[in-house]
Structures are given as C-alpha cells and as structure tokens.
C-alpha cells in the first residue's frame, strides 16, 4: 500500500451556528487529480483552509505524505511541499511577474539568515523563467502583476503554486473568470505538469466541463459533508449530486 499524499480525517469547522465543514474524511493517492465540487457555500474553501493551516479545524486531523500536519502554520505546509491557490485572486500587484514567481520559491532555499546574504534573485531567475514560459507568460515577465488582465493574473497565481516543486497542489477555482481559450490552455498545462512531475492535485471548480475532463476522481460536498465520490461519469449521473445542485 502506498502512503497517501494527503489524508484528511474527520475534519469539522463551524462559524457560529454554521457548520461549514461537518466531518469530512478522504485520501488522495500519489499522482491523482482529485476534483472537489459542490454548491456555493458547501464548505469547499473552508476545507482547504483547514487542511492548509489557514483555519484551525474544530476537530479532525490532516496528514501529508504520512506525516501529521495538524496545527502547522501555512508557511510550514508550503515548506513540506504543499502548494496552493486561493479562490480570490492573490498575487503581489506591485511586483513584476518574475519577482512574484521568485518570491514563491525563495523561502524554500537555505536559512533565513542565509537569504540575507544570498544573491538578489536567490539563484532562481532561470527556474522562474522556465515556469513562466511553461504557463505561457514569457512575454509578461517584467510587467507589474497588478497591471495584467484578470485571467493573466490567475495564471501568475497558479504558476506561483508550482515554483517550489510541490508534491501536492490545492487549487481553489483556478478557472474562475478565465476565458474559454485560456481555460483550455490551463487544463492542458495542469495535465502536462501532472504527467511530467507526477504532482498530485486537488482542484475545486464550478466549471463542470473543466473538472470532468481534468480529474480522475471527484468528491462532491454538500452542506459540509461528502455526498458522493467516484469517477467523473459516475458522479455526473449520481441522483444525489443532481439533487444537491438543483435543490440548492
């Protein structure tokens, strides 16, 4: 049995009277592209934030590559090889695309004090340029991230999640607000990255076309609980899923 890249056990999180996540458990195998879908407010983002140390869950535990990460801070998860994006656009607007991507990698190199004496780019320019080119942003390398279009910023945001060479990446609605051509490009890039590096993904997405064609397995969340799980075709046909979406 291989150790799961991510093991989530009985995570629950409430906000006052709202039970945003209500006892969720699942595992993600190495190299898998897992989709996480569910209606608005079903607790997907809250679940991500509990996994990544952004929120403290009320109960439950999280393991990454067999190692408990409960109570770890977000930066520690990043250093353990877990990349992420946020649902809201999240770049450094007054820094160039190149600096955005270098910042995404530099904290993984050496010690804090060592970085004070390191080269200005922490020796990461070439690597950052490769990743920028991979996401087809090469022509925007020196632009301020805040000056780019929404879709372009979304790609920069995604690129940053990969800079540190993570073994697991959690993407919260990477396709939100991205146009159709760029969407196809993004999907193709994610699949290519997965093939080349064996990187595991968990992807939250509302665009069904995108999720169904990208993911190998899908988990459906409704009102903070898993209501269905399986390969895309099975989930699509599941009456409980259709119910959850139509019932609101």
């Amino acid at each position, binding site marked *: 049995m291989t150790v799961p890249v991510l093991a989530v056990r009985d995570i629950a999180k409430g906000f006052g009277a709202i039970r945003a996540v209500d006892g969720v458990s699942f595992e993600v195998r190495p190299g898998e592209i897992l989709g996480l879908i569910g209606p608005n407010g079903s607790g997907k983002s809250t679940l991500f934030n509990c996994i990544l140390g952004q929120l403290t869950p009320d109960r439950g535990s999280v393991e990454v590559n067999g190692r408990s990460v409960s109570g770890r801070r977000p930066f520690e998860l990043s250093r353990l090889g877990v990349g992420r994006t946020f649902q809201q656009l*999240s770049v450094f607007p007054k820094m160039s695309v190149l600096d955005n991507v270098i910042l995404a990698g530099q904290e993984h190199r050496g010690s804090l004090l060592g970085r004070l004496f390191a080269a200005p780019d922490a020796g990461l320019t070439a690597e950052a340029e490769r990743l920028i080119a991979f996401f087809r942003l090469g022509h925007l390398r020196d632009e301020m991230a805040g000056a780019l279009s929404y879709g372009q910023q979304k790609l920069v945001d995604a690129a940053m999640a990969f800079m540190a060479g993570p073994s697991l990446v959690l993407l919260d609605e990477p396709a939100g607000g991205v146009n159709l051509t760029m969407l196809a490009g993004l999907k193709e890039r994610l699949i290519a990255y997965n093939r080349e590096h064996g990187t595991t993904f968990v992807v939250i997405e509302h665009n069904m076309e995108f999720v169904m064609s990208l993911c190998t397995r899908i988990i459906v969340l409704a009102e903070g609980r898993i209501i269905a799980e399986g390969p895309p075709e099975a989930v699509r046909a599941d009456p409980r899923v259709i119910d959850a979406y139509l019932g609101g």
Partner: protein
Amino acid sequence: MKRLLLLGLGLVALLVAPLGQGTYVTYLLCSWLTFGIAAMGLNLTLGYAGQISLAQASFMGIGAYVTALLTLAGWPWLAAMPLAVAACFLVGLALGFPALRVQGHFLAFVTLAFNTLFFLVARNEDGLTGGPYGLSGMPRPDFGLLDTAQQPAFYYFTLAVFLAAAVLLWGIVRSPWGRAFKGLRENPIRAESLGLDTRRITLMAFAIGSAYGGLAGALFSPLVQYVEPGSFAFAQSLRILLMVVVGGAGFFFAPMLGAAMVILLPEVLRFTEGYYLMIYAGAVIVLMVVCPEGLIGLGGRLRDRFQAPRPRGDLQEGARP
C-alpha cells in the same frame, strides 16, 4: 549609467556641501543626515514591509540616551554606538510582537503608546536620564587621525556613518529579504502560503528599522551634545513619518529626500518671515493630495507623462491564450 552619474553627482554634492558654510548650515546638514538615517529605518518598516510605526523617535531616543550615558562614562563612541543599535534592535523586536496580532490603525496606536511610554520613562527616571533636564556635555568622538570636535570634521563623520547605513540598507532591500518585506506588505496571506514565515519577517522589519533609529540617536547625541525627553516625543515620530511619506514610502531614496524637505526646506523658506511654516504646510498638503506616493512617485509620474508610452508585451504581440 544615468543612475550612476546621478549617484556620483549626489556624492560630490554631499562632499562639498559644508565647504564655506557657517556652523548653523553645517549643523542643519548634520541634522538632515541624522534624521535621514532614522527615516531610512522607518522606510524599511513602513515603506517596504508595510508595518506602520509611530515610535521611531523613541528609538532615536533610546540610541541617544545609551550613547550619551556611555560616552559620558568614558566609553569611546565606537563602542557605545553598537550597544545603542543593539538595544534598539532588541526593543524593536519586542515592539514587533503586537504587529503579529494587530495591523493598521491599531498598530499605529500601539506604537504611539510605546513612544509615550518612552517619553515618560525618560522624563521621570531622573537618576538615569537626568529627567526633564536631560544629559549634556557628551564629547564628540575623537578617532586620533580625525577629531570631530569641530566642524566640518563632525559633518564628514556623520556623512560616513550615513553612507555606510545607506549601503547596508541597499544590500538588505536588494537581497531576497527585500522581496520578502514587499511580499509581506502586498499580500501577507499569500506570502505565508508560499513559505514565507511572516511572523519572523515582521519582527525583522521592526527590529532593523528600530536599529536604524538607534544609529540616528547615536549620532544625535554628539551632534547636539544635549539630550532631553522632548526631543523624542511623539511629535518627532510624526516628523520622521512625514519625511518617509513626503519622500515616497517604499522608494529607496525617499527618506533622504523627505528629510531634506522636512529639515532644510523650512530654512530655505525663512525669507518669507512669518509665513514659512504656512507655506510649508500647504505644500505638504498639496503634495499628499496630488501624489500620495510622495516626491519620488511624483517624479515617476512626470517621467511617464513626457516619455513615449512603452507598449506592454502582450499588447505588442496580441493577446495569446
């Protein structure tokens, strides 16, 4: 190339500035450089790292009192100064802890309270600080080859310290730390999710910025040869903040320019007699309304206006998927 030339010209100007000037003008120049160092520190904390502090004057105060007490006790300046800087580094580190919990207005109030606390301690602990009468008679450093008791020797001594501090800061903001500070300012949550230990880097932003305040204090003590609590009151912190903001927070040369505006400009305006402070205040208000990014930001805008627009990469090539 153009930049190097400008930098060279600036250096030459700094070198010849005190020549043929009276003691008052030389004193003003020293004061400008000294406050420039304090403002450089605040520019790191506020401009680069985005952490508001209204306590920079208290760090100047700590640096000045430590230097005054030690040099009065016979220590050489070169031994007193590192202690003053280290003390401010540590106190600044401690002041950084509230910033891990509160931000914005609340952090402003916490730092303001600290400045007030410092003022009260300096005024009330007569035994150590001389109370409201302060301490006086600090010697100016004598380095054997260079005795700074007289001007312009003291000016060149101040200039040397100022340049060393600027070069050091340049090194810091150019290193990966500089990028980390900016990341903290622009989007702390994203930065943390990318592996940045935002707590540590916040503490460092306060500690280093405060250490610069301490260095400025270590120069202030032999410059004025008289330290008293009033010199480091809250209003002085506001003045240092004004230097950073008027110059353009987050730009490397902003503190030097801002300190010049705050310290030298009022003197230049003195010929207008009673009106100079009003003119000065008016100019600051107009600048802040027209260009909140300060003088350097204003310069950038003017340059953009008179330069042919630079086409953006993707607009040049046409949008690509």
